[in-house]
């Protein structure tokens, strides 16, 4: 390994890839069932961007995998169990109503855009390259989800109530995005990654501004938060998502598709 160019750790890349993969899987559950045709198409666009990003992160992770002789993106996606997934708890939360889906998207997009900005400056050139590509896509995701949060928050009484309920339901899953652990510290120290705590203030600023325009009430920033996804301790929901997603690879081991 070139000492001047540190590589991001395998697990660190899994976190990035799994966020994109799991959220894309959730969004694809909406396929053909959205509230309007244009919305179906736009949501599918986001799902497609995310699955593309997941493939890039997981392929790179597979190359750096010390456990095996390099696992493929599909081996990583379809043959790991829940405890080996490293995504944030937020992205595995069920779709719920379309309000829940959009609020989850907005809270994640706001973090994702900030995280990719850091990663685009990574000392690991592969990470920087993938992040730069993803950054453009996610800038659009964030514009779209912010715009919808504003319009639905400041829409009808019913839509405001639904968006407010979604916000309160999902808020306790947002803290994890800013909690660093040893892996984050190592990645930040090597220049390959970043310190997640540093994103908290700009995230709160941005989210607060959008929620205010949406006439929604932001839950307290200091509220109690769930965590564990980044370390592989997930909610009950992830196992079912994987059971569905991994069905064919599990039922027909070794088959090529």
């Amino acid at each position, binding site marked *: 390994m070139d000492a001047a160019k540190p590589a991001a750790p395998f697990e660190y890349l899994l976190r990035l890839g799994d966020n994109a*993969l799991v959220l894309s*899987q959730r969004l*694809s*559950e909406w*396929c*053909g*069932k*959205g*509230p*309007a*045709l*244009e*919305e*179906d*198409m736009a949501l*599918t*666009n986001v*799902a*497609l961007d995310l*699955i*593309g990003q*997941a*493939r890039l992160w*997981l392929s790179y992770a597979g190359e750096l995998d010390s456990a095996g002789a390099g696992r493929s*993106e*599909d081996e990583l*996606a*379809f043959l790991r169990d829940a405890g080996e997934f490293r995504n944030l708890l937020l992205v595995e939360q069920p779709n719920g*109503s*379309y*309000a829940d889906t959009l609020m989850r998207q907005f809270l994640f997009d706001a973090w994702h855009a900030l995280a990719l900005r850091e990663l685009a400056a990574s000392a690991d050139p592969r990470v920087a390259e993938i992040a730069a590509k993803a950054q453009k896509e996610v800038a659009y995701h964030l514009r779209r989800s912010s715009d919808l949060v*504003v*319009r*639905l928050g*400041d*829409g*009808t009484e*019913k*839509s405001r109530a*639904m968006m407010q309920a979604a916000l309160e339901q999902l808020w306790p899953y947002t803290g994890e995005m800013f909690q660093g652990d040893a892996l984050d510290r190592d990645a930040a120290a090597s220049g390959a990654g970043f310190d997640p705590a540093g994103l908290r203030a700009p995230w709160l600023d941005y989210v607060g501004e959008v929620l205010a325009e949406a006439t929604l009430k932001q839950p307290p920033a200091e509220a109690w938060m769930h965590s564990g996804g980044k370390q592989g301790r997930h909610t009950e929901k992830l196992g079912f998502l994987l059971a*569905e*997603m991994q*069905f*064919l*690879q599990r039922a*027909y081991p*070794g*088959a*090529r*598709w």
Partner: protein
Amino acid sequence: MYAQMVDTGAKRVRAAEEMDADERAFQERIDRGVKIEPKDFMPEHYRKTLIRQISQHAHSEIVGQLPEGNWVTRAPTLKRKAILLAKIQDEAGHGLYLYSAAETLGISRDQMLADLHSGKAKYSSIFNYPTLSWADIGAIGWLVDGAAIMNQIPLCRCSFGPYARAMTRVCKEESFHQRQGYDIMIALCRGTPEQKAMAQDALNRWWWPVVMMFGPPDEQSVHSAQSAQWKIKLFSNDELRQRFVDQTVPQAEYLGLSIPDQALKWNAQRGHYDFGQPDWNEFFEVIKGNGPCNRDRLATRVKAAADGAWFREALVAHAAKHQAPQAQKAA
């Protein structure tokens, strides 16, 4: 086809002497190959028939997302999942172009959707069959999109301008879909014995429903002659069905799959394959609402529309609040 048994309101073609001067001039334009545009004169039956045909086609694209959506969360690789997502998104886009084309005839998308949800408007019989394995996703791309192309390529030359233009955009994407579906079949047929069996089972289940997509035999198609005269149907059901069979048999042979039709045989004299008759009784039952998935498909669309009502209302309410001051300024 995506539009099956479209009612023209006429059981026989009107002769020139039965038409008034406007209608005669209209028919002459069509005969000369001039496209009819939304602002042009058109007989009421032509307009109504086209609304039925185009909206039925649009509904088929939209309902058609559901059988494939059934496997998008279970696609076997990330690449296949991405391709399938993109395909389903294309189908939604086809629905959009087609609704827009129908709107030029003076009907709103909301009205068309209301007609779909109430059961008044139909969509293609094919989407009332279930997708039971991953191979069905291959079979749909290969056979259903393949059959759709057979019908839609001629429609690029149909007499109504907006429909012809929508079909031109749609056809490009449909041929991608067909290749992608066939590629799934190739992978399965080169795979394990279980995968090959999955592919054969899919072909067994989809073959006859696809053969029926082209609609009833010509001698039973009471509306076809009028549609042909108006150039909104360019080939008969049986002609298109024959072309489809002729094209598909070698493709099945290449895959090493057998088509479930005992009567299928090359006829050197005709230069075409002879083939058996599907169970037309089944076809009419599916059209009536008794196919294996009619209730599920419609219920899913109705629920999506109902669940999304708050969303659409909120966007309208937001726009009204925030456009009002500007409108006042302008006034």
